[in-house]
């Protein structure tokens, strides 16, 4: 854990510019990263999988996969990698960064899109731009798997119903011959409007290790 000190401030500055985190936050996250990776340079799926508090999360798989998904790295690549370095780790984390009051409307809009894109990618496993029914069912099944009393079939029915909703809201006049191929990103955006994702998709990243609850944004 102490190894983080070997990194130079300059290196962090670079990351800070890229991800928007403050230096302190990066410092903190780096400590966490090394803790997770046992002081290795990279992190792999097992490392994340073994986080104890994650054990109860029904969509653990999707989340972990998101970390290794190249689409979330702000590069124009697709596919997933076996292990990621700290920079990629930060990149993924940066999707959950709260805005400060200084961010402009356009920036906010961009952030919102990015956040949605992250969620969308979590569902769209084959990166074809749509969440197909199969993909969606998979997520819903996982999601409901922890509730125990809902069988796979019920989960499937719920996924189907949800999908139909999207279909009927977004393509209100479908020809009988049409099929709803899947949720596109635009539709995804549309349906999640009501959730006010942009005001909620935040994690408090601490500046300092002690929970003094400062989150690095300017005061009003």
């Amino acid at each position, binding site marked *: 854990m102490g190894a983080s000190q070997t990194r130079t401030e300059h290196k962090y500055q670079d990351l800070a510019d890229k991800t928007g985190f403050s230096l302190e936050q990066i410092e903190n996250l780096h400590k966490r990263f090394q803790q997770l990776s046992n002081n290795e340079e990279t992190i792999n799926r097992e490392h994340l999988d073994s986080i104890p508090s994650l054990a*109860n999360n029904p969509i653990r798989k999707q989340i972990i996969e998101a970390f290794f998904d190249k689409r979330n790295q702000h590069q124009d690549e697709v596919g997933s990698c076996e292990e990621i370095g700290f920079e990629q780790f930060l990149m993924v984390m940066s999707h959950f960064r709260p805005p400060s009051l200084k961010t402009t409307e356009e920036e906010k809009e961009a952030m919102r899109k990015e956040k949605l894109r992250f969620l969308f990618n979590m569902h769209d496993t084959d990166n074809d731009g749509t969440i197909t029914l199969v993909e969606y069912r998979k997520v819903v099944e996982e999601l409901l798997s922890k509730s125990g009393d809902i069988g796979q079939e019920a989960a499937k029915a719920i996924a189907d119903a949800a999908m139909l909703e999207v279909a009927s809201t977004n393509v209100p006049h479908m020809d*009988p011959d049409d099929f709803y191929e899947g949720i596109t990103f635009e539709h995804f955006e549309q349906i999640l409007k009501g959730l006010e994702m942009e005001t909620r998709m935040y994690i408090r990243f601490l500046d300092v290790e002690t929970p003094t609850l400062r989150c690095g944004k300017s005061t009003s």
Partner: protein
Amino acid sequence: MQRCGYVHLWLLGSVLLICLISGVTSVKGDVALLHQESHLKPLSEFKSNLNQTEQGNGSRVITGISIVTFKWNHVKTPYLVALWILVAVLAKLVIESFPSVTNVIPESALLICFGWILGGIIWAADLQQTFSLTPTVFFYFLLPQIILDAGYSMPNKLFFTNLGGILLYAILGTVWCAATLGLSLWGCQAGGAMGALDIGLLQYLLFGSLIAAVDPVAVLAVFEQVHVNEVLFIMVFGESLLNDGVTVVLFNVFDAFVKLGGPRINAVEIIKGIISFFVVAFGGSLVGLAFGLLVSLLSKYTKNIQIIEPGFIFVLGYLSYLTADMLSLSAILSVTFCGVSCQKYLNSNMAESSVNTVRYVMKVFANGSETIIFVFLGISAIDKTIWVWNTGFVLLTLFFTLVYRFIGTFIQTWWLNQYRLVPIAFIDQLIMSYGGLRGAVAYGLATMLDDQRIKEKKLMIGTTLIVVYFTVILQGVTMKPFVTWLKVKRAAVAEVTLIEKVQNKVFEHSLVAIEDISGQIGDNYLRGKWKIFEEKWMSRFLLTSEARKKQDYIFNVFHQLNLKDAVDYVDEGERRGSLEFVRNESAFINFKKKLGDEFSEVLPDIMAAASDDPDAMRRDPVSSVSLQMHEKTMQGTRETEDIDAHHLLQQHLYKGRKQHLHRYSRNHLDINTDDNEVQEIFQRTMRNRLESFKSAKMGLAPAKTITKHTKKDQQQKMPNGKSTDTSKNYYANNEGFELSEGDNASGSEASGGSFPFRVNYKAGAGIENPTFMPDPDPMAPMQIPPWQAEDEPDGSTVSPSQRAQVRLPWTPTNLRRLAPLRISTQSTDSFAQADTPASQEKDKKWPPPPPPPSDK
């Protein structure tokens, strides 16, 4: 549930309508009359006294028996109470029948005005104020149900998410308002702004504390009409709810100080006061929690006394109020938390009808007493004896309450925004400050002042009333334009959608996961942990096993939405005179065309999609025309369905259905208490309708002759997708020759592994309507009804082909989720299963459908 809701609404509506028709023209007169009657009370009382004495004397002397006697005194109190309730409710009725007025002026303000008028009439009749709101009536009979309702219908998640902020405003904000107002008034008095008043610093602080109470009744009344965004709403509402409790506590502390007298207050007493403040507040909350858990626990065991099940929450809620009051803890906080803590468990434990009952009765009580409170607030003002005017005092109080509310809110929000991830916007702060309406709690506390020690009690009451009027009427009226003008973010009035709920859950889990991974302990982390704890422990202790099953929120939403769609469906159908509208959509014919065109490619998709419709036919052995094709995809589910169907039939049809005995029973509201049966009847009715139209739409050939039921060759289908045999069946259909037995047989074959007994059952299936095969034996292992057999080994059934699952069918767009209900006939989830059998019975009820339209 929705259905019930509609029924209730309808009932309510019709009652109102009747009242309206019969009364609206004369309501005003009525009201006035009622009033006359009630203010004539002293007079009539007097008379009746006379009567009674006369009678008393008479009975001694006179030998005759009077046939009718007038005994006003016997019924006086309850009669007056009932009359008052009637008057208040009628007033509300009249007011609400002018929506254009209530759009501009909030109802609470109108009710107060109405109170003034009534008060005027009473005054004119009696020349004194006979009626006024006494603290006892207010605190013990009017307030508890309002607070209970508020707590019970509190959006828990929102509340706890913003609890930090709410507590800050409720505690610090109240103390701030009380202290600053008291001190400022005292300062002003010392500066000579108000003339000579006999009020000391402590009394001022006491007054400040009572006037600091932002009133949930008033706030709710106004904010419910404005629809601001949810964070703002919960902030103001949560604050007002909690700060009532805080105010009462604060009031009591200062009251104790006043009693103690200035000179004897030292540091120890002050510290004691502060400690008592916290003890009272948190103790009250704890009492409430305890009662809430008690109610939840009780509701676990009320299965057999469903009829009084809804009563528990009211009795125990009230008891929690009284208990806390008895222990001199905060009664308001107690009943708030009682409601907050029990709502979830109660809602899942109780039967749906009870849940509805609780909800409605709660609203009736709360709304009724709210109305009465406002009317009385108006009436109380028309009383010369309470008015002692001191312009300086009144104006300064008004000014300071307003100004300090703003200052306090801004300071606290600024502080809060340091820590909030999503800061509270400036405009929201403005509205929050402006929404600091004072109400009946302040007035109730003011009337509780001890006029021995506080010489200017009357002035204080009068001033409180002025503040109440000012805030409720003026601020209430201006609130809406203000909100519009400032472009405050409004609440999105959106329909609940399943996808949103699902996404929301995904989203929440992602947040928790990210926090876990990043090693941050934040709100999400805590919430996640609490959920796990709750699922593990709380649910186990407080929920019945069935309720635990239904616990999942998404599943509930799914259920509700399905019910709603079903109801909509029927409504829509009835509106059009029949359910035929589905027929016009011609979806099916097109499906079939598509089948023809892109046979091998798309077929499985369609099959899965259209599964339910063909299903219906296929199950109908008589008209087994066209639908074998989807057998591939459907076989797995079908067999389970068939088992269930058989079961249901066994249970409900082989034995005669229970007769509905129409009898009155105090214990049983619902004559037919067999859940399964009720459910089945409902669902079967629904199904019947749906399926029959579908079949009509599909155009079944009437009674193609049957049999050849063991086409074993057809069973060699490959379980995935586009098998050759699907196509074969398809063509076979078109020739109208091949029959559905093929798939019946195949279904049984496929299932053979997991349900050996099914083979027997199926063997006869082709010959006659399988549902009527008197072959109960093989079913023996299946005695668990489908809705209970959650863990049906559905995994063992042949899964539909991959492709088949990929797409969804086109559905009539006016039924957004009903289609999923139909799709879910494939599933083994409880309701889907319960309804599938219904369709199988349709051949009994419906004539054979018309011949098929030529689909080729």
